[in-house]
């Protein structure tokens, strides 16, 4: 067959395929998945997340177990979404002896009912740098809430969590506003963020009323001499709600996780199912068609592997060899080819006795031509259905191995997200955004393959076609 024949065939195939609606739906979903799998890394807010998924420090600026940002639409008290404040206004004043004072002013529009959980100021530079942070509120009040000497060196920035470090400063601020109220506050239990974003009132701790409006956060750093330098700081607002799909208990952004999971689900699912089904179908046909010793040997191997319990075996092998994801794919293939072998074997036994096979032999076809042209196409719909059906199971196997800490921890998979949710009590704590999206993603991917399978079934099985 030359290239043009192949292209013609492909065009005919598409013409028929485009008539099957479910197939188009399945294909559309799959294409979206493939698009997100390929280009997802440029759409996610944490581009390096793939390398740092298991790295707690990478995620430390996020709020813990925060629901998705859009839940604000449905809740009475709106929470602050997590965000980053960057590009401050810079004001530079020169002091004596080369001293330079830099003041960075961040504008923060606060229109929510709940104060941010934390403001994290990140400073970087080189040298011993004294710094202070002031907050000015929409009502004109405000002042310095933190001051310290930073020892910065390249690659070793400072990260100041105001919720933890600014207790004294905030208490001082309240004192300057209203000493009576300040006296009622227990300095060890003060919540600096709640105080700073609340109207000053006697019951401000028990019943805070948010002070809405434009806030200014000023970070001032003093550069002692030209030997030292500082970078522009940034502020992470750690909110109540975060991102498109919220965060998990380890503060990881779940949207990032889901998007990163797509490519691994596709890679693991498609590679494993394609390899195992192709191997299973091929061996099944070969055993049935050639019979005799070939049949005997293949059937014994099949029985041996079929009798082995997959999961314990995977666990033991994973524990001993600590496989990478690629080794794991091959391992799963070793077990999954048996899934299609016996069915294909029995189907091929029947097909090889068909008159059209005999007719083809009478025309001079060799064994391989009959296998490729006459037997395989009939088994193709079954193969695709079998692939589609095995993909979810394969993802679950990978997840199960990951659950036990035996998977490849360098990847992010939906299975791993789900297993983390399960073990860390997402269900009990009502953290639905941790469970539903990965579950839905697995279901959607399974569905897209199932739709594709039935559509191909309709095309490749002309007898099912409406005439």
């Amino acid at each position: 067959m030359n290239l043009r024949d192949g292209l013609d065939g492909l065009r005919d195939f598409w013409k028929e395929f485009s008539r099957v609606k479910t197939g188009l739906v399945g294909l559309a979903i799959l294409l979206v998945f493939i698009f997100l799998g390929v280009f997802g890394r440029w759409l996610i807010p944490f581009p390096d997340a793939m390398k740092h998924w298991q790295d707690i420090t990478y995620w430390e600026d996020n709020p813990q177990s925060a629901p998705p940002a859009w839940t604000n639409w449905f809740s009475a008290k709106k929470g602050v979404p997590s965000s980053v404040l960057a590009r401050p206004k810079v004001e530079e004043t020169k002091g004596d002896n080369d001293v330079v004072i830099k003041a960075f002013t961040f504008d923060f529009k606060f229109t929510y009912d709940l104060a941010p959980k934390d403001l994290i100021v990140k400073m970087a530079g080189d040298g011993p740098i004294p710094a202070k942070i002031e907050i000015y509120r929409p009502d004109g009040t405000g002042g310095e809430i933190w001051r310290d000497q930073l020892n910065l060196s390249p690659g070793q920035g400072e990260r100041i969590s105001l919720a933890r470090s600014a207790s004294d400063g905030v208490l001082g601020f309240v004192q300057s506003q209203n000493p009576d109220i300040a006296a009622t506050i227990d300095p060890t239990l003060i919540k600096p963020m709640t105080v700073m974003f609340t109207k000053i009132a006697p019951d401000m701790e028990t019943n805070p009323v948010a002070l809405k409006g434009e806030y200014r956060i000023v970070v001032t750093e003093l550069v002692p001499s030209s030997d030292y330098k500082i970078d522009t700081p940034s502020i992470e607002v750690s909110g109540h709600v975060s991102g498109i799909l919220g965060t998990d208990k380890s503060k990881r952004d779940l949207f990032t996780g889901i998007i990163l999971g797509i490519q691994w689900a596709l890679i693991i699912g498609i590679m494993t199912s394609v390899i195992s089904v192709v191997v299973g179908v091929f061996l099944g046909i070969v055993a049935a068609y050639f019979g005799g010793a070939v049949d005997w040997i293949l059937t014994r191997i099949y029985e041996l592997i079929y009798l082995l319990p997959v999961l314990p075996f995977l666990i033991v092998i994973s524990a001993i060899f600590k496989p990478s994801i690629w080794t794991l794919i091959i391992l799963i293939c070793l077990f999954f080819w048996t899934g299609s072998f016996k069915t294909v074997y029995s189907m091929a036994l029947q097909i090889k006795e068909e008159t059209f096979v005999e007719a083809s032999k009478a025309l001079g076809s060799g064994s391989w031509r009959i296998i490729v042209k006459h037997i395989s196409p009939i088994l193709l719909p079954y193969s695709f259905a079998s692939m589609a059906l095995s993909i979810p199971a394969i993802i679950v196997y990978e997840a199960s191995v990951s659950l036990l800490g035996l998977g490849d921890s360098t990847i992010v998979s939906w299975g791993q997200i789900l297993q983390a949710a399960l073990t860390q009590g997402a269900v009990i704590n009502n953290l639905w955004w941790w469970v539903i999206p990965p579950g839905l993603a697995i279901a959607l991917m399974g569905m897209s393959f199932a739709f594709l399978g039935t559509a191909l079934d309709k095309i490749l099985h002309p007898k099912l076609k409406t005439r």
Partner: protein
Amino acid sequence: MQSPESTSVGLRTPIALELKNLRKEFHVHRGKTIIKAVDGISFSLKRGEILGLVGESGCGKTTTGKLVMRLLKPSSGSILVDGEDTTAESANSKESDFAYRRRVQMIFQDPYASMNPHFKIRDVLEEPLLIHRVGETKEERTEMISAVMGKVKMTPVEEYLDRHPHMLSGGQRQRIATARTLILRPEIIVADEPVSMIDLSTRAEILQLMKTIQQEMELSFIYITHDISTARYFTDRIAVMYLGRIVEIGTQDEVIDDPKHPYTKALIQAVCEPVSGRVGLMRELDIKGEIPSAANIPSGCRFHPRCPYATKDCAEQAEPELMDVGGGHQHACRRWKEI
């Protein structure tokens, strides 16, 4: 691979195909039971001749067809094409098998089953060309396909090329099956009950078409059937088979108008005639019972348990060989003069 010219022009002998004492045994139940499906048959097929192979189901006529088609290996005996022994060791290579299949082709009984349901008519007809690497380009092959479809009167060609077999009627399908065997320009065609699955109304048409093509292309034809009436209409000679052996062979007129063997007589008697007045009358056949199992062939003349004329001799003496009664009309009944 031989070119079509050398096969059709080169070594032409008046005998296209010759079977010599051909046997086929099947061993079943781990070899405990031996089924003698074909039990020593010999006949020759002249070039351009149609030979009918007639008998009940289970008499070995389809097995004979498959032996000729090399779909089965004979247990013993030989098949000669153009005087060459194709069952010899030397002819057992892939190349000779390939060449053989260009010369000998088969039309199957069931036109529904003999085509891959996934194939379009184009694929069905293209397959022999692809297997034998005939036709360089797709256009060239399409031209050959169109030509052969014209021959079997499947026109306009474009209307059928992209259809699947299930979209055609039985008659149309059998035309396509015929076209598939003709596309390689073979010399010998084995047709295994080609019209038995087709509506009566189109049977004559298909047979007429086959006969026209056979004459045009000077094909040698083996027509396997259980229906002795179409055999008379279609063939030049008829061989009657019973339980793996030929019991009578001769020109179609001689065998049908002047049958010598009681089995042939019974077969002719069994033909239904839609004649008024006789319709309600069930024919009472002279022969009794069913055809015995090929695993347990009766002693003596293998027909004696069912034969109305059988004597003690028939059961005890050795099986009679074919005897000539003149003009190539042969039969295997020792009591033919008496009955």
